[in-house]
């Protein structure tokens, strides 16, 4: 029934049994054309607007809710169609078609409305251009910030690289490498120099065990021990070990290690490895030389010991029998015989003195210093008494001692040194009517300098260093007796105190010996 009704309606779409709509306008031109033109222009624009809309939608790929735009387009087209039919209806009365088109328009408008209603919340979310602009600005600012940070990061990374390079080149120059071990992973981190010390390519992966195995076998127990102590007791180490590099070369290294902590628990180690091969080998060879030196010193000592015993025995015999001859048998010899006997006697005595002096000199080098504070003035007072027993003493000698600052040293040795200096002064003044020896002290640059001045024969300053050597004599033994060891003993004593001795002298006017301790 209903179907028949619809069929009938469709069949009558172009039924023209009604009167045209112009009749309603009574064909009045103004009424008619104003309606027809109005409808036509509206229809025209209603057809064009969707075209633009479709074009717009098709061009803007990213536009949201395209469906609504399409519905709007259909809706406007249907409106355009209704206006068109309205204009046509003025002359051709297809009112069924007009009704159909209006129904269609109504349906489309409702559908559009429904779509709008459904999509409204979503549509509201679509940002407005100003909001978009704001977001855009924000985004731009964020991008700029990001770029800036990126640039900073790059700069920092470059700086870090430079620092690492500097560290590496410093380590290379100083032959120091740094390392780190993580107990959890067992992995080690080595600086470039550590690889170089091991003779390895830089960056080769390493684990703790590898590192230990590079040490020479006899050091490995110790290496393991210090690592274990660092791990369990938190101890550090600083030791010297021999490392065998990849080529089999042995290198002395100094290694230090410290535990690293996390939550009070030892989680790893870090430290340094320093190539000390050259220094160590030099030190070892120095040690060997010192041992050799000690050995030759010991030999010298036993040599001097045997001199003191074995050489003196025949000397005593020569001297002893010569003296007995002189005392008991001088009457049996003529004058020349007695003179020759005298020479034998005095030569033997001289040789005895010489041996004694050499022995004293050699003993000085070996004897340990026992230092104590020394009152220099009382030392000189004692010496003044002892010196009056000397064979060089006579009534013409006058020793004048000024107030002296106290010092510190081995009293027996210093006494010996000063005795020798005083005796030296007397000896090289002998023959003068008035022998004046003055003793004093001065302070220069905070150092106490003592001096002993005589008015004796003096020496040519050309020989100022020579006179301190063993057996160095500037005068013939005939003119001034002595063994030539006295001043060498003085110099040795002063030097063993870490001091210095020197002299100023003028031939014919006297000498001044200076010393500081």
């Amino acid at each position: 029934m209903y179907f028949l009704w619809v069929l009938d309606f469709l069949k009558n779409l172009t039924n023209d049994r009604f009167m045209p709509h112009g009749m309603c306008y009574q064909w009045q031109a103004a009424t008619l054309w104003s309606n027809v033109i109005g409808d036509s222009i509206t229809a025209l624009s209603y057809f064009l607007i969707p075209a633009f809309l479709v074009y717009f939608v098709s061009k803007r790929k990213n536009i949201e809710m395209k469906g609504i735009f399409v519905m709007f387009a259909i809706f406007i087209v249907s409106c355009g169609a209704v206006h068109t039919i309205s204009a046509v209806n003025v002359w051709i009365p297809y009112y069924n078609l007009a009704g159909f088109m209006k129904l269609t328009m109504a349906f489309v408008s409702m559908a559009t409305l429904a779509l709008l209603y459904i999509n409204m919340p979503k549509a509201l979310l679509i940002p407005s251009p100003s909001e978009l602009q704001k977001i855009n600005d924000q985004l731009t600012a964020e991008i700029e910030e990001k770029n800036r940070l990126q640039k900073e990061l790059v700069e920092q990374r470059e700086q870090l690289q430079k620092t690492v390079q500097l560290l590496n080149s410093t380590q290379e120059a100083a032959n120091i490498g740094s390392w780190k071990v993580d107990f959890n992973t067992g992995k080690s981190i080595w600086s470039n120099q550590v690889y170089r010390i091991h003779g390895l390519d830089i960056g080769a992966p390493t684990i703790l065990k590898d590192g230990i195995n590079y040490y020479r076998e006899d050091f490995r127990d110790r290496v393991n021990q210090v690592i274990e102590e660092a791990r369990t007791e938190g101890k550090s180490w600083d030791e010297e070990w021999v490392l065998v590099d990849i080529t089999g070369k042995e290198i002395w290294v100094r290694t230090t290690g410290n535990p690293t902590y996390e939550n009070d628990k030892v989680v790893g180690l870090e430290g340094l490895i320093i190539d000390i091969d050259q220094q160590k080998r030099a030190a070892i060879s120095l040690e060997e030389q010192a041992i050799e030196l000690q050995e030759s010193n010991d030999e010298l000592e036993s040599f001097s010991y045997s001199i003191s015993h074995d050489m003196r025995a025949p000397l005593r015999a020569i001297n002893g029998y010569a003296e007995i001859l002189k005392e008991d048998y001088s009457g049996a010899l003529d004058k020349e015989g007695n003179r020759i006997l005298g020479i034998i006697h005095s030569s033997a005595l001289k040789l005895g003195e010489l041996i004694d002096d050499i022995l004293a000199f050699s003993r000085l080098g070996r004897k340990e210093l026992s230092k104590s504070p020394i009152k220099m003035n009382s030392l000189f007072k004692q010496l003044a008494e002892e010196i009056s027993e000397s064979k060089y003493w006579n009534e013409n000698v006058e020793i004048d001692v000024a107030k002296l600052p106290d010092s510190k040293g081995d009293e027996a040795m210093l006494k010996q040194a000063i005795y020798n200096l005083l005796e030296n002064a007397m000896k090289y003044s002998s023959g003068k009517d008035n022998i004046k020896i003055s003793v004093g002290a001065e302070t220069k640059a905070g150092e106490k300098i003592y001096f002993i001045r005589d008015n004796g024969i003096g020496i040519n300053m050309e020989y100022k260093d020579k006179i301190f050597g063993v057996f160095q004599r500037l005068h013939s033994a005939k003119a001034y007796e002595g063994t030539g060891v006295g001043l060498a003993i003085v110099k040795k004593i002063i030097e063993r105190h870490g001091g210095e001795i020197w002299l100023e002298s003028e031939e014919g006017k006297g000498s001044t010996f200076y010393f500081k301790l």
Partner: protein
Amino acid sequence: MKNLDIVLIEDDDNDAELAILALKKSIPTVEIIRLRDGEEAIEFFEQNGEISHKPKLILLDLKMPKIDGLEVLKKIRSYDWVKNLPIVMLTSSREHKDIVESYNLGINSYVVKPVSFKDFADTISSIGRYWLSVNEESNK
């Protein structure tokens, strides 16, 4: 043996003769026995443990072949009858360690033999005279 005064233990013939000469010069009546080395010395002191005439002084040379003065000293000091006899060490050595060791082993004094015979004679004579007179006193 009538009256033994001094036992001289000295391996060097010259030194021994000079010492005896020096002592005789200073004390003409002195009775001296000279022993040539350490072995002879030990033998002498072993055998003479029972003798009534003890020497009044022993002069002992430090450096002797085979058995040196320190060993002789150690050995003879262990005999009761030698324990209290004065022993003077004679030597050429001024080595500190020799002196210290000698004193530790109980010597009474120590003489470094000088090269000069006159000095040696003076020293040894005064030592001889001193100890002989000390013993005379105690024997009285």
